[in-house]
């Protein structure tokens, strides 16, 4: 009898473990089986929950801009929506895809999540399948002319298979350099506008123990920015055409651009060992701590023009110095074509509502507030972290005080105005994950001398 009981206990225990595992697996797979079914189901449940208590408890996943800004957005949102509690869950930019993928597949614990355009981390093409279509909600919020009110890229780049999967929060522009104007003034260095001046500036700084231009070329995304800028310098728009299949990667322009890219390393514009360091944290830290005078960063770097933000970021870079005047400049005309001032943009991040959100309505309210309301967008604009997607909103320059208004106000305002006026020129939005990887490989290979420019261009063309 005892033996039979023991056997029974063992079998029951085994069966319960197996069935528990199977049960959760079924639940997870149901969540991904059909977007529309899941959306409908969660919509019903959210209505029920809202009707039941009117309180919502949401989790917002993302990688940017990071604490404490996200908590500040939530606090501001709660002034209008006090019954919605939102918890910000942050991962690093590199870990985001690995973390969010199983979380979304599991179907629980993710109500709102950040996505980005194209092949960047959190790509909407991959994760959009887990998000509801927000077009109707946006139309109800902004009216039938909502397309006229928002940045075109915020809608186009977030549309997957005809459905608007996320609401853009702000755009980022890249293709320019940032310089430490105080260092340029101190050493009486001319701001570079072409290859020779750029090299001369780097040589002068090097002679004074300062790195002229710093790039973390071990982090491929920023290499792509530099390469894109070189391509636009040679023939504006051709890079974007190639990403859309309207031009060949074997075009001589791309080979010439790879040659110029290599020349940056060979002629000492790129600092020694550039391929061995990352843009974040190393290159960023070198620039913010005054060890380097120039860096390839985009509009997200504008926030460092605010003294408090810069001081905090300088402290993170182990610098206790006072904030300095950094200003944006055009990418130098290294091809000698006269084509300068081109930048490229993407939605930095957009807010998606999970099909499995515990309260879809409350989550949608937040996404709309952040991406389409005047107050939410004004907050984004004034942080100078992103350029708002709502066209009617721009930074309130009466409230925004830069570190050195005399040196910074004019170039920063001109930079943002010029950036917003640039034509359709996506940053990563048109680049597939495979092309992204191939381009990073090619740029590293050409820079290190293991690949010729011609072979590099051929490798880009070979990407399916």
């Amino acid at each position, binding site marked *: 009898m005892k033996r039979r009981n*023991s056997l029974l206990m*063992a079998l029951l225990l085994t069966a319960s473990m197996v069935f528990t595992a199977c049960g959760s697996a079924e639940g997870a797979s149901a969540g991904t089986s059909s977007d529309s079914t899941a959306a409908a189901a969660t919509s019903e449940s959210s209505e029920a929950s809202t009707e039941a208590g009117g309180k919502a408890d949401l989790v917002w996943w993302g990688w940017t801009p990071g604490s404490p800004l996200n908590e500040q957005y939530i606090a501001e949102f709660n002034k209008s929506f006090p019954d919605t509690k939102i918890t910000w869950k942050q991962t690093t930019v590199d870990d985001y895809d690995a973390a969010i*993928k199983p979380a979304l597949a599991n179907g629980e614990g993710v109500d709102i999540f950040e996505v980005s355009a194209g092949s960047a981390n959190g790509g909407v093409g991959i994760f959009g399948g887990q998000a509801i279509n927000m077009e109707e909600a946006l139309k109800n919020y902004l009216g039938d002319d909502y397309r006229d009110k928002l940045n075109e890229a915020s809608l186009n780049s977030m549309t997957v298979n005809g459905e608007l999967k996320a609401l853009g929060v702000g755009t980022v522009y890249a293709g320019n350099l940032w310089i430490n104007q105080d260092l340029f003034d101190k050493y009486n260095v001319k701001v570079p506008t072409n290859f020779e001046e750029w090299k001369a500036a780097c040589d002068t700084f090097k002679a004074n123990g300062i790195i002229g231009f710093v790039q973390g070329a071990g982090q491929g995304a920023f290499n792509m920015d530099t390469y894109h800028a070189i391509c636009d310098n040679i023939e504006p728009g051709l890079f974007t055409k190639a990403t859309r299949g309207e031009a060949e990667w074997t075009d001589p322009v791309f080979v010439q651009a790879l040659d110029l890219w290599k020349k940056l390393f060979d002629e000492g514009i790129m*600092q020694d060992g550039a*391929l061995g360091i990352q843009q974040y944290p190393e290159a960023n830290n070198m620039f913010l701590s005054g060890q380097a005078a120039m860096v390839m960063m985009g509009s997200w770097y504008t926030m460092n023009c605010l003294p408090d933000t810069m001081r905090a970021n300088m402290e993170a870079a182990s610098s206790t110095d006072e904030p300095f005047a950094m200003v944006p400049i055009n990418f130098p005309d290294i091809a000698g074509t006269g084509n300068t001032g081109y930048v490229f943009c993407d939605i930095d991040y957009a807010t998606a509502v999970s099909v499995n959100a515990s309260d879809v309505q409350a989550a949608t309210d937040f996404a709309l507030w952040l991406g389409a309301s005047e107050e939410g967008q004004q907050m984004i604009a004034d942080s100078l972290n992103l350029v708002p997607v709502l066209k009617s909103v721009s930074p309130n320059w009466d409230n925004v005080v830069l570190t050195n208004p005399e040196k910074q106000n004019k170039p920063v305002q001109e930079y943002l105005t010029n950036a917003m006026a640039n034509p359709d020129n996506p940053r990563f939005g048109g680049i597939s994950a495979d092309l992204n990887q191939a381009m990073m490989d090619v740029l590293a290979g050409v820079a290190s001398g293991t690949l010729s420019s011609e072979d590099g261009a051929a490798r880009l063309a070979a990407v399916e």
Partner: protein
Amino acid sequence: MKKKLSIRNNGMIWILPAFLFLIIMIYYSIFFTFNLSTMDWDGLSPTMERVGFANYTKMFKDMVFWKAIKNTIVYFAITFVVQNFLGFVFAAILHSDVKLPTVHKCLIFIPTILAPATMAPVFRLMFSPQGMLQKFFDFVHIPITVDWLSKPQTALYVLMAIVVWEFTGMSFILYYAAMSQIDKEMLEAAQIDGAGNIRTLWTMVFPGCKGTTVSLAMLGVIGALKTFDIPYLITTGGPDHATEFLGTYIYRQGIRQSHLGYAAALSVMLLVMAVVGAFLTNKANKGD
């Protein structure tokens, strides 16, 4: 009846739930991974496309895959030899009359317990041209530029040096324990017969530690095959895949590029290589 009682008496019945659970989980995971390796799937979409062995065909034509295999072999061969040579020498030295032996043991073993994630930023700084090593060379006026991590020709060797630094303590501690088991009288007899220290070490002590060497080889093979943290955190597999390993490549394909099917095919290959490696080292141990 006797047989049934013996099953119960030897405690098999009590480990049955955990045993079955473990078997189901491991074999299910292997089967799932193999099944996934015949699919084209991004990890989230509700549909998976069956592609047969296309992922395997792609793998054998993939230059990066072969580069990862080559890196793994070079990495294993060099780190295994250097790490175990140093571990063996340190163990032999500490079996002689050395002052403050405990301090030395701690110093040798401490790197083993430091997490690679915490050490990676230190090494990135140390081996950058603006780092501590460069400053040292500048200070002593040695004209060397420390840009080794940025060059495909040297980056792998820097990683191997870091791994040797980190895991020599493990080899040392195992050799130290193995040497404690060797009969001292036998060593004394050898020395009376005229064998010097080096010869005694090579002909008496080293063969006496063969089991440890084989165990370390097996751990080394498996460790090399699943290498991920150090290359990922220090070089992210670059420059130009010069420090790519199967682990980093599986992560790159599965997570970064959302080719879950291809990543699964690479994982199956990794499993096959780990089993073959373990089998060969085990066979070498029994062959004696």
